[in-house]
């Protein structure tokens, strides 16, 4: 990632080298010829256009992408231009180019061992008594424990290498020390405690897995395809394209009449219904008719504990107990006795997740029972038929006239306003 912090060398150069090797393949690679440069004939050269054509054909990409990729090959020095050698640009024309003889091929990489690192740290310790950095001190002691059986060897090697380096010139020694330090900063072997990993592996072996043919049905994407603006567009128009915010206005949190697509989404899953403010409102109305609105109220109150301020947890839990759980409570919820007992026990020491079991029980109750019936109800069906299907806004006749882009109140401002207006101001 960022060179300082990644655990390995820049791998795009390795991949780039693969491309260069493929381009020079005797059978499938580029056809070289002699290129004329002023009065000289340069052998084994190719034109910019040749490079682009070869990339297009062999990687199945268009000209724009081929130019982009080829540009990097020139920038990184693998291919150089014969005309204007200081200008590292790939020109899609008859300009001549040649392959650079690489001065640094990174094809042989060997894994860094803990032993190497231990020797390096031991050397540093001997040379600069106790000047190891914090993380180096930690690693040193971890390694000392882990490969303790080789420690005599480590110390012996450290001494020998130090002795041998003393025979170099001081300037060389300093450079080498810097290089070593920099090298180990990037390449130090990871602290890999093996036993936790073995634990995770063993647990993973015991999990229940589902057959691929069942998991990969892929129906989610199909179901939501018409709702995906980047794929199918949106009505009346995508505000980012047309500069018209009608789409956002029509789909605001609470509107007199919602759009068709929005109401359809409520039927996709119970979570969709609950996460839409209007959907929740409608569902609440339905539950009131069925005399089971306390379930949704209870669920909402539990949500407020889970996500609310820590300081308010105790008082909120008390409220819930009073309103929903106490015997004879005004809006008593029907939870099975086992969950009820567990919850009442937990309330004695209230914490953020004390209501989780009860909340889940009521959630699944609503999901399995009330929700499917709601979708079949007249309330839902009439909402669906009333819902708006916006007209598509045709592209402007005068495309160069840009519409005025209106600003909107920031959420922070809106929260301020509602606070000053008083407690009746909208929820959510």
């Amino acid at each position: 990632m960022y060179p300082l912090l990644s655990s390995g060398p820049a791998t795009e150069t390795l991949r780039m080298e693969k491309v260069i090797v493929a381009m020079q393949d005797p059978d499938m690679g580029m056809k070289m010829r002699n290129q004329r440069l002023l009065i000289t004939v340069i052998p084994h050269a190719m034109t910019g256009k040749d490079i682009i054509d070869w990339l297009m054909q062999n990687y199945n990409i268009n000209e724009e992408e081929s130019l982009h990729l080829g540009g990097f090959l020139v920038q990184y020095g693998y291919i150089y231009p014969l005309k204007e050698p200081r200008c590292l640009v790939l020109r899609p024309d008859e300009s001549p180019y040649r392959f650079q003889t690489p001065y640094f091929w990174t094809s042989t990489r060997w894994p860094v061992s803990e032993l190497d690192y231990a020797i390096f740290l031991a050397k540093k310790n001997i040379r600069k008594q106790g000047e190891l950095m914090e993380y180096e001190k930690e690693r040193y002691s971890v390694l000392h424990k882990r490969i303790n059986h080789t420690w005599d060897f480590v110390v012996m090697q450290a001494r020998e290498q130090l002795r041998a380096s003393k025979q170099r010139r001081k300037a060389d020694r300093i450079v080498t020390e810097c290089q070593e330090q920099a090298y180990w900063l990037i390449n130090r072997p990871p602290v890999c405690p093996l036993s936790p990993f073995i634990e995770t592996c063993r647990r993973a072996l015991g999990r229940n897995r589902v057959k691929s043919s069942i998991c990969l049905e892929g129906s989610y994407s199909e179901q939501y395809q018409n709702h995906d603006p980047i794929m199918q567009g949106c009505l009346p128009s995508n505000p980012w394209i047309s500069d018209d915010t009608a789409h956002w206005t029509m789909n605001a949190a609470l509107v007199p009449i919602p759009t068709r697509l929005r109401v359809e989404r409520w039927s996709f899953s119970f979570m969709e219904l609950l996460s839409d403010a209007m959907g929740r409102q409608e569902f609440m109305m339905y539950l009131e008719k069925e005399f089971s609105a306390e379930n949704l109220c209870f669920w909402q109150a539990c949500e407020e504990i889970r996500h609310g301020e820590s300081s308010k947890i105790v008082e909120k839990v008390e409220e819930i107990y009073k309103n929903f759980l106490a015997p004879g409570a005004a809006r008593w919820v029907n939870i099975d006795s086992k969950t009820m007992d567990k919850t009442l026990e937990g309330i004695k020491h209230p914490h953020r997740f004390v209501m989780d079991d009860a909340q889940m029980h009521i959630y699944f109750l609503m999901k399995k029972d009330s929700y499917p019936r709601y979708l079949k109800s007249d309330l839902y069906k009439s909402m669906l038929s009333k819902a708006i299907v916006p007209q598509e806004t045709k592209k402007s006749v005068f495309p160069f006239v840009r519409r005025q882009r209106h600003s909107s109140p920031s959420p922070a401002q809106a929260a301020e306003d509602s606070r000053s207006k008083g407690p009746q101001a909208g929820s959510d």
Partner: protein
Amino acid sequence: MCDQTFMAATFGPCESCGKPSPLMNIYIKNEAINYCSFCVELMACQGLQSGESVASLKRECESLKKKLEEERGKLNDVELHQVADKIEVLGALAIKTRRVLKGHGNKVLCMDWCKDKRRLVSSSQDGKVIVWDGFTLSKENGISVPCTWVMACAYAPTGCAVACGGLDNKCSKAVAMHTNYVSGCTFTNSDNQILTSSGDGSCALWDVESGQLLQSFHGHTADVLSLDLAPSETGNTFVSGGCDKKANVWDMRSGQNIQSFESHVSDINCVKYYPSGDAFASASDDATCRFYDLRADREVAVYQKDSVIFGASTVDFSLSGRLLFAGYNDYTINVWDVLKGTRSSILFGHENRVSRVRVSPDGTALCSASWDHTLRIWA
């Protein structure tokens, strides 16, 4: 690239086992000898039993890994692209830059959308965090954070607050404290809790009000670079990815590592859940993006192309999950067909690395942040 003049840059037959390999220069009684690293280790371990226990642990690890792959393979009765055969091919997408946000003085490292679908927050290497109305291009707020490399920023769900963190190891008014840089942060479903990932190898859940650590998550063996919250009914899990090439799924309440995936060959820079919550995607320095199904417990797709040679730093899904947008270090954004596994289109425009891509909350646009100091909004 550093030149490794202090390492034995020789390659040849080992003086002990005779196999040609890179050689370490080792001194025995003032004499330099050339052994391959395996023989050096053998020699150093001679005569001591504890050497064997390290080797045997390593062997047990390898065999367990193999068994796990076998188990995962048993239920692999169909591939994703086979299932996708009966789905229609995507038409050509006409995605263009619709806005360019200029104002940062240095590399833009992170951005996040506000739930109001048009505002966003971005953070940059010069320590500035800016809140924009993306639609009108106006800058609404600017904060200076007293550290450079603000790598992570997040918008609170109510839109009334912003969190950020970076090389100062902290996340916002010192809510979260790690012992190394903060690479990612996100609010859980409210303004009151923040989840952070860090270069110190851990993730943590914090209470915003008190700054208290609620839960910590240990299991990565190197820097954790990214995390994402699962969009599920029970809302209790998240996924993280890091420099140890692993993607781990965690239970937020117990702190346990529930599932682990290791198939990338280089650092994982970004992880993001598929909208249904049953799968997630990852972007890596190995120039691929991968797709993992949580119920099948394995990788089900690899998004790669020979012409894509630079590392991928960021991914996000379109609203339906059919498209995967991935930002790369070669300044482009590739759009992948998640189900069919093919590259649908490529977006040019940025003039330096793309550090972050995010689809807006209602799916109408994609925002990208780049080291070229700008953000772009595409639709």
